């Protein structure tokens, strides 16, 4: 309900094959169940495969199944997936692999492995998406599903495997356009909708108020702490890069000086009709310093971005909640003493 509203903001302009993701209630429930099981028992991230089909510019997710735990060595994952799909096909379920899902805590999903696996998915299955389910936020009453796809630039960047500042600049990749968010819709059958509304009416008035949780401080604290860590990391990266820059500039100066000296020498030699000194050893003398890869800072920047988005969203929602609570309170008081 809430998740449906969240996804409508930025529609990617590029010639993506998919305009939005439409998930079945069944698949959503399965994902939620799996993720909550994982996160409550052992704080692991849950992962699974999404099944469905592409219709026009819409990716429909009709079913899903969890991946086995990574710790299980004996099982071959690929075989398991294939077998799983074969069997699902037998029971007449869509067996087209359209992506994968992962659980996350307050938007900390962005990471190198995620980037890598999504790259592999998207290169093998053009339409595939990654669906992120935020367990923590959902448990606070905000059902949070997000679908992401890598941008073409990001794919290009990853293909080249080069993360120097120049390459990133050329491809125009930044933390903002690593992923594009694809709108995520949940579609239920009319029958389900009917039942939902019936259920909603059965919920007593008092029960509904429990979602108006006002304990904002601890959530914000957690978010801030995460953010601080990320900022520290990014700061480290910046310092690293700064150091690199200094090294490069110093080397550049040395190089200039050396070249100047060599040129003078050569001029002197030319005056004396001697063969000029060879110049090719310049690269040996001044071995270029390794450029610090920019992928990691980019990912951290992306994390900070999601964190801050999450915080601002949380804050606005909390504010809204406060107003609702006030209204409820007023209404209650009005009821109590007419």
């Amino acid at each position, binding site marked *: 309900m809430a998740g449906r509203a969240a996804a409508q903001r930025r529609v990617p302009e590029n010639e993506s094959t998919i305009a939005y993701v439409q998930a079945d209630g069944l698949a959503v429930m399965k994902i939620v169940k799996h993720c909550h099981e994982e996160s409550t028992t052992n704080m692991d991230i849950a992962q699974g495969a999404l099944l469905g089909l592409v219709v026009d510019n819409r990716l429909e997710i009709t079913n899903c199944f969890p991946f086995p735990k990574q710790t299980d060595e004996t099982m071959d994952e690929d075989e398991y997936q294939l077998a799983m799909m074969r069997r699902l096909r037998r029971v007449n379920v869509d067996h087209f692999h359209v992506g994968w899902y992962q659980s996350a805590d307050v938007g900390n999903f962005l990471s190198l492995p995620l980037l890598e696996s999504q790259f592999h998915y998207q290169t093998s299955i053009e339409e595939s998406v990654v669906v992120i389910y935020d367990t923590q936020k959902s448990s606070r009453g905000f059902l949070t599903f997000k679908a992401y796809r890598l941008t073409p630039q990001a794919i290009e960047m990853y293909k080249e495997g080069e993360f120097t500042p120049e390459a990133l600049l050329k491809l125009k990749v930044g933390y*903002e356009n690593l992923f594009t968010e694809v709108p995520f819709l949940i579609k239920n059958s009319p029958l389900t909708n009917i039942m939902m509304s019936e259920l909603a009416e059965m919920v007593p008035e008092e029960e509904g108020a429990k979602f108006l949780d006002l304990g904002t401080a601890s959530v914000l*604290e957690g978010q801030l702490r995460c*953010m*601080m860590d990320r900022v520290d990391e990014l700061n480290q990266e*910046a310092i690293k890069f700064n150091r690199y820059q200094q090294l490069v500039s110093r080397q550049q100066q040395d190089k200039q000086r050396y070249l100047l000296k060599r040129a003078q020498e050569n001029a002197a030699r030319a005056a004396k009709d001697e063969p000029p000194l060879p110049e090719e050893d310049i690269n040996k003398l001044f071995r270029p310093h390794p450029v610090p890869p920019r992928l990691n800072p980019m990912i951290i920047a992306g994390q900070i971005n999601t964190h801050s988005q999450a915080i601002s969203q949380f804050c606005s929602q909390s504010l809204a909640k406060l107003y609702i609570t006030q209204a409820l309170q007023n209404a209650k008081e009005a009821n109590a003493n007419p």
Partner: protein
Amino acid sequence: MSRFFAGSDTDSDSSSEEEQIQRPQVPVYTFSDDEEEVKRVVRSAKEKRYEELTNIIKQIRNYKKIKDMSSMLNSFEELQKAYLKAAPVVLKEENGQTPRFFIRCLVELEDFINEMWEDRDGRKNLSKNNSKSLGSMRQKLRKYLKDFEDDVAKFRENPEQPDDEEEEERPEAEPDSDSELPSKSQFTKAPAKQQVVEDKDESSDSDDWPSDTDSSSESSDDDEGKYTSMRERFLKRPGGATHEDYEEKERRKEERRKERKDKDRRKMPKDEEEDGEGEWETVQRGVAIPSEKPKMFAKDAEIDLSLVIKKLSEIMAARGKKRTDRREQIELLHELQNVSDQHQLGPAIYVKIKLAIISAIFDYNPKVSDAMKPEYWLKLLERMSECLDLLLSNPQLLVSDTVTEETENLEEAPYRIRGCVLTSVERLDDEFIKLLKECDPHSNEYVERLKDEAKVSNIIDKTMKYLERSNVSSELCRIYLRKIEHLYYKFDPKVLQQKAGDASVPKDAVTSVQEMEKLCKFIYAKDSTDRLRTRAILSHIYHHALHDNWFQARDLVLMSHLQETIQHSDPSTQILYNRMMAHLGLCAFRHANIKDAHNCLVDLMMTGKPKELLAQGLLPQRQHERSKEQEKIEKQRQMPFHMHINLELLECVYLVSAMLIEIPYMAAHEFDARRRMISKTFYQQLRSSERQSLVGPPESMREHVVAAAKAMRNGNWSACNNFIINEKMNAKVWDLFYQADQVRAMLTKLIKEESLRTYLFTYSHVYDSISMATLAEMFELDKAVVHSTISKMIINEELMASLDDPTQTVVMHRSEPSRLQSLALQLADKVNNFVDSNERILETKQGNFFLRGANQVRVGFVPGNFRGDRQNYRGSTNQNWDRQRRDRNRDKDNY
């Protein structure tokens, strides 16, 4: 080879046999050997000596020809030695006439040297080595020739006179090879010697006949002669031993000889002719290693003061020479002491000899760094106290280093003796410490040695008394400091009893503190060298701190301003300073001045090597941190074990005081981003324990303190107290204090108070108000104490609260930033840092762009300036900047 063998053989067998034969109690001089040998194997010995001489002379001639001065110098020295050896033979055989060939050689040598010396051009051409040798040769020769002046003069009168054996040898020396030489000389020598022997026999006894034969056999077969003589000697020995009358004669003869020698010695200074011989005798005695007791004077000599003095100075003259036997010197001096005692020559000479003995014992150890042997040490102690006793009992005696040798007066009443008791005592004290350091501190040996401490102190006391008589302030200062150094580290329980008004100690009893006071004040007033005063102050403070006189000790430290200058002083004083600081810290701790205790100890503990700083042991060597010499020097600086300060106690006191300061501070500044550490070491301990995944029950002292700190963080005072004060910690640490129970009570009280503070800091945001009665109950403190603690916190603005008097509660004010706010502040700080570094990246880029080729200074300068600007305008532009970025994003999206 054979010659050498024969020589050594005669020496050894003669001496060993003599001892068996003779009366054992009669002390025999070593050079009796030679004479003995002469008697038995007259010819061979004489021949041997002479041959040695002629060989060397021949060598010298060769060197003369090739002008090899350095070798010649060596040979000349050899010649001197050889002649020295031959001297007794000469004396006997030639009636003291120096052999002519020897004189001739000397004369030739002199001429040659003079010639060389005159020839300036030639001298310049000589190599450096040679010319140096020439110089020293000339001097030596001159000196040496003085002994033979008469002979040389005689020789010069008529140099052509054919002298006994040399005459024939000389012309042949040059053309001939070596083989022919000895035969001729021996051949010619033989009759002459026989004559000599016959002369001698008339005067003494004629037991030489059997040996005579081998000389003749020798002369007949030249090369084998020596071997036969040797064989003869081997053969002869049993025969010689069986003759009883022969032995007796020998004995008699020896006695006679000794008498004569003594007479010689007494004649020595006057008699110029015998002078040379006398000199040799003394040297020889010094060189030889006697196994018998040395003999001082002739039996019938009349022993008086001047004789003893002469003898003493004679012995002392050998002091410090390379080849002097030091042990023998000590024995000689003791002997001399006995002799002078027997004849009652007065106290002055007694003291004089005692001083000589003491310095001889000091000399015994060749290396300064090594400790002396215990037996000598004991001897030294005895001599020293004897000497001092005598000095004290005789007010007439004056021993001083201002007395010159001329003004010395050993004979009558106002005795004046040259010497310095103080230096000896100081040296003795040093030796004592060295000796202690040598022992294993956990062995009985150490305890045995330590028992001598009383004796040493006693000696110092006596010296003090003695020096007080002469009342020279610089000397008094020195001896007082010695006394102080034996006093300052000793704990005197009487002081504390007196302070507490204990009946068992009378009010007017002089305690060590008072004594210390007296000594130190004298030094403060009279000392002119800075070092003594510094050391006295340090020791004084130490002593005060040891006896819980916290205020006196603190005031002395503050008044002396030693903290500022101590790094310019010598290492041992710095060590003393460190020791003083350690004890001052302990004293402050006992007086519950935790902050002072911490400040005193922090410098020592921060480096992590208090052991080295207190000179209580060396850290194991880490990758050549110090060289061998450095290590040796450091070893010399070490404190003897009985003066050590318990390091575990020190560390525990430090950690506990750090805990008492740091934990409330940490609680108060939990969210302060720029919280500084008060005690790094304590922090490290905490960290390392936090890093452990599983923390077991505490075992060591450190673990106890860390566990206590953790308990205190939660305001759990009783757990904290149990960790600090329990049986293990009592045994390890607290029982080491003199009044351990007081210390423990003090600690418990402090722990309660600091736990209360920590509790308030940590949990104040939970409370709106707390009743003080509840707090007092929780921490088992008096209400008044709780009240005062909280008031103090409020006054210091550590706790935002106010006291509500009628209800006895603390009402909290919510003025502190909440947790979230402080987190946000921290985040803002971090983001600031990040922006800084990010801008630096940008700057380098721009700097490169604009200032390409510019020098480093400008590159460095411009960004700095720029950054300074930014800090001013950032506040206002921040929002704009954000908006710009957002706009940019939107632009991109639209695109």
